[in-house]
């Protein structure tokens, strides 16, 4: 299965009842997969008239209490941002998959990591964040989509899956039990969505809103949201380490770039250079605790991204006392393993 298809199947198995999407490369396989499979499962698939309509359909479906998903790629995600902001404000859960391509503008259809800021800093207007998970393999994409639905429902928030063209289009096998017997992050099943719009039968009318005009309402609402963000920051940090136990040099990379860095670490190790990798899985909340712990004995920290340097800012914020060196190539060009190896070697010789 390609990453795109696998994410679709994972969503269906996670109980996604509603999907709306709009064509954009490189995520089209996901929409096409959902068009076929959602019908088979007698769930709702809509090809929307635009990304804006798609996210607002998801807003409606989520307001109606259904697990809902949409997917797109960078320019399309830009169009969805208003809707995502409304969903964050109205506390509506949903999973939004961004199979990143290169920008700015129309950019390029090839892989990129240049939507990091957009994803981790809210992206739309207003004071909010969206939990953002970034898979480095098809198998992990499946796990994360499942988990994203749970996190979304548990906290009542939209959750982003930040994949890229490489993850979306790579074909990899998935262990069957990952699909069929997923480990659940939350032991308790999400309860009945008492806030959802289902018709006011035997209860007061429910209202889905993000507009708070009267004095004191909005600050109170934002305080409530702020507490939620703080709770997510504490509880939902995820990261992974590779060869980091005895490492002198740590390379930080996420998503598809972590696959390249992993190979680079192996090459460096072959040359007796004690390199290791730190791989953030949750980009917001950034895994600050584990990164801080991982760099205790580290001499130099390298950050590799397929962008002009976005995640590196979170690394600098987390471990400002360390020497941090950045290497990145922008979309349309994929860093080679040798590029990473050479960059590290050049800077440790000094």
């Amino acid at each position, binding site marked *: 299965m390609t990453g795109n298809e696998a994410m679709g199947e994972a969503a269906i198995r996670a109980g996604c009842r*509603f999907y709306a999407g709009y064509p954009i490369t490189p995520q089209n396989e996901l929409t096409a997969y959902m068009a076929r499979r959602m019908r088979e499962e007698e769930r709702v698939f809509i090809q929307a008239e635009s990304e804006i309509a798609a996210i607002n359909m998801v807003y*409606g479906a989520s307001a109606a209490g259904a697990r809902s998903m949409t997917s797109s790629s960078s320019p399309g995600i830009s169009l969805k941002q208003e809707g995502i902001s409304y969903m964050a404000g109205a506390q509506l859960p949903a999973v939004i998959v961004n199979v990143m391509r290169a920008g700015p503008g129309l950019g390029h259809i090839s892989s990129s990591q240049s939507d990091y800021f957009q994803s981790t800093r809210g992206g739309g207007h207003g004071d909010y964040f969206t939990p953002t998970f970034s898979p480095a393999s098809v198998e992990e994409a499946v796990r994360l989509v499942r988990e994203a639905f749970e996190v979304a429902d548990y906290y009542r928030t939209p959750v982003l899956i930040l994949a890229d063209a490489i993850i979306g289009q790579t074909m990899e096998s998935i262990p069957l039990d990952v699909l069929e017997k997923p480990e659940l992050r939350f032991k308790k099943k999400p309860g009945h969505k008492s806030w959802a719009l289902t*018709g006011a*039968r035997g209860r007061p*009318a429910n209202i889905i809103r993000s*507009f708070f005009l009267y004095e004191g309402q909005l600050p109170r609402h934002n305080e409530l949201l702020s507490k939620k963000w703080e709770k997510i920051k504490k509880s939902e940090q995820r990261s992974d380490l590779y060869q980091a136990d005895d490492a002198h040099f740590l390379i930080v990379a996420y998503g598809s770039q972590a696959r390249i860095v992993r190979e680079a670490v192996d090459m460096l190790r072959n040359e007796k250079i004690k390199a290791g990798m730190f791989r953030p899985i949750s980009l917001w909340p950034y895994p600050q605790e584990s990164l801080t712990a991982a760099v205790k004995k580290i001499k130099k920290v390298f950050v590799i991204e397929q962008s002009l340097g976005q995640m590196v800012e979170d690394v600098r914020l987390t471990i400002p006392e360390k020497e941090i060196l950045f290497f990145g190539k922008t979309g349309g060009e994929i860093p080679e393993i040798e590029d990473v190896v050479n960059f590290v070697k050049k800077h440790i010789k000094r």
Partner: protein
Amino acid sequence: MKPTYKFKKPELLHGVDTHYCSGCGHGILHRLIAEIIEELNLKEKTIGVAPVGCAVIAYNYWDFDCSEASHGRALAVATGIKRVHPSLTVFTYQGDGDLASIGLAETMHAANRGENLTCVFVNNACYGMTGGQMAPTTLIGQKTATTPLGRDPREKEGWPLKVSEILAMLPGVCFVARSSISNPAHVKQTHDYIKRAFMNQTEEKGFSIVEVLSPCPTIWQKTPEEAMNWIDTEMTKEFPLGIIKNTEVHR
């Protein structure tokens, strides 16, 4: 002894004061919708969607489930809700800027998909909430904040957009009507059209829309009485009243 009411505030309308200006048409329309939902016994089965505009907080006045929508997206939101709960009655309550300008794509496509929805389209020929700018439905010659000399097609400000007539061309649309609330007879007519539009949804006939010419005395700088007269003398010339389409949708 309990008094017998001949005309009584519908139960589904909260008794609270509205934020609308004196003589605003929203109040009459809110009441009509509450009455209709009561008459059809749909309180427990109705979900309203009100997008950005003066009526975005309509949920403060109605006693049934409601959602806000962002500007222009009410019919996309309603599509999402309706597809999840096909047995519920879902309606949108949209202004002209919302439905005919920023949300034109959502309007056209929800209608063209033949979504089984009810749309109440409130046409007051301007953007009321933001201070009276030109709307797609602004009349030729009408002065607004952004057409200070009056809307002039020669200045490429366009003509009044007749969305109802356009929607009537789509096969997914079963019912299109235009009415006004400029006098008691028209209010009754509007009631009947909107009720028909709700019943069409229950009968799964497809997309129904009722365009209502509604006064905005504040922006029009008229008294409520003058505003009602202006609907009759000026607006209906451009937007004639009556049923534009009434048919079964072939699926």
